[in-house]
């Protein structure tokens, strides 16, 4: 049966990997191509790059990073952040990305999902959703998790699926950076709302948090950043922990 995926996420700003806490203060960490190659060798099932550059120059740097990564990394990788048009999707796929993540632009123009999936196949269109809990449910947030759209997150993921999304990358704004575990109730609600794979993101602080989200929500994949980047835990340690708890995981063997 299909294995649960363990995904390190690299937030990239102007060519360097950085990591924010609750979407704010950023610290520089390292070279994204090198880090992606290391994670790939270390057993990562997929790599996600999130481009948080605010400038065109930063975006062009990202395209170069994607090209170099495609030459050195032999696992799938996704690139998101600042993808606004069909040309952005095309540029990143041509550079060698396997999938492209679309966030705010899909919210303001859901037809972009239809257009992109019709042209490139839904398997390479990942819709990134940042959600935050309010009294009346979860709202879709944009602009790095700071702006409340007022849109119901569970309704939005269903719309995204209908429009042709291949996967949902779900980040909980409430748990992101807090390291007390993934947002289990939000993740479960989204997994139950759609029939496409969901990647849980936000809040991972230990290997047990992976096991928890896999076992309790039916999610297809889970993503973490700081616990890997800071060397707190390796991908291998996370996978051994999951396998020890009976989670079906890919453990790269003799090869």
């Amino acid at each position, binding site marked *: *049966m299909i*294995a649960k995926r363990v995904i390190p996420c690299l937030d990239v700003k102007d060519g360097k990997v950085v990591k924010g806490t609750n979407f704010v203060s950023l610290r520089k960490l390292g070279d994204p191509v090198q880090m992606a190659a290391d994670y790939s060798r270390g057993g990562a099932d997929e790599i996600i790059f999130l481009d948080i550059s605010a400038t065109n120059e930063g975006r062009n740097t990202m395209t170069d990073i994607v090209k170099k990564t495609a030459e050195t990394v032999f696992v799938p990788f996704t690139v998101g952040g600042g993808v606004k048009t069909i040309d952005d999707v095309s540029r990143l*796929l041509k550079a060698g990305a396997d999938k492209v993540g679309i966030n705010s632009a899909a919210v303001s123009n859901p037809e972009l999902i239809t257009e992109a999936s019709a042209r490139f*196949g839904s398997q390479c269109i990942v819709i990134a959703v940042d959600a935050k809990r309010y009294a009346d449910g979860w709202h879709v947030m944009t602009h790095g998790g700071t702006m409340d759209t007022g849109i119901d997150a569970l309704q939005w993921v269903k719309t995204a699926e209908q429009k042709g999304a291949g996967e949902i990358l779900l980040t909980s704004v409430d748990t992101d950076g807090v390291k007390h575990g993934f947002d289990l109730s939000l993740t479960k609600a989204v997994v139950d709302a759609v029939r*496409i794979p969901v990647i849980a993101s936000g809040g991972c602080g230990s290997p047990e948090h992976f096991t928890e989200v896999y076992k309790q929500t039916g999610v297809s994949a889970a993503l973490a950043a700081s616990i890997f980047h800071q060397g707190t835990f390796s991908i291998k340690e996370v996978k051994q922990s999951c396998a020890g708890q009976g989670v079906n995981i890919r453990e*790269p063997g003799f090869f």
Partner: protein
Amino acid sequence: MIAIVDYGMGNVASVSTAFKRLGYETAITDDKQMLHNATHIVLPGVGSFHAAMAEIGGRDLKKTLQKLSETKPFLGICLGMQLLFTEGFEGGFSHGLDILPGSVERMETDYILPHIGWNALAIRGETNPFKRFENEHVYFVHTFAANTEDKFIAATADYGVSVPAIVKKDNIYGIQFHPEKSGEVGIQILKTFLQEEL
């Protein structure tokens, strides 16, 4: 030189990179002379069966590919594997390359589609060149799958149904998953294909 057939369906650079990593020279091409000069033919591809056959038809490559499959080690990857069969139903009915008998149909599984992610291989037969990859995980992304005779199925993966993962008939190989995205295991699977025919 390994020829990677360029017919406008998806990014083929990563397939080329994987072969280069093994020390082989590659050419991404739709030029018939180059295809004839190649030691191996690799047909990659991502997208729909119907659109792919239209592209192959538009480039007048159908007969060329059929002919090449009679004489050279020939590997179809993902959509390229599906195109090897007689017919397909993705994007409406289309004739395939008809190099292997069978049809390509939407998977009938209770699990979510596409079948996306890392799944374990079950290798058939004791003398199978892929035997050492038993239970290794490889990366799949697909919704349609081959329906063919058992004797051509060299490996399967379990996704509620038994999914043909590797098909083989003499010098013709088809791989449903993405070996170029399956880490070191995938690279070694490509190497096995190359060594089988040397």
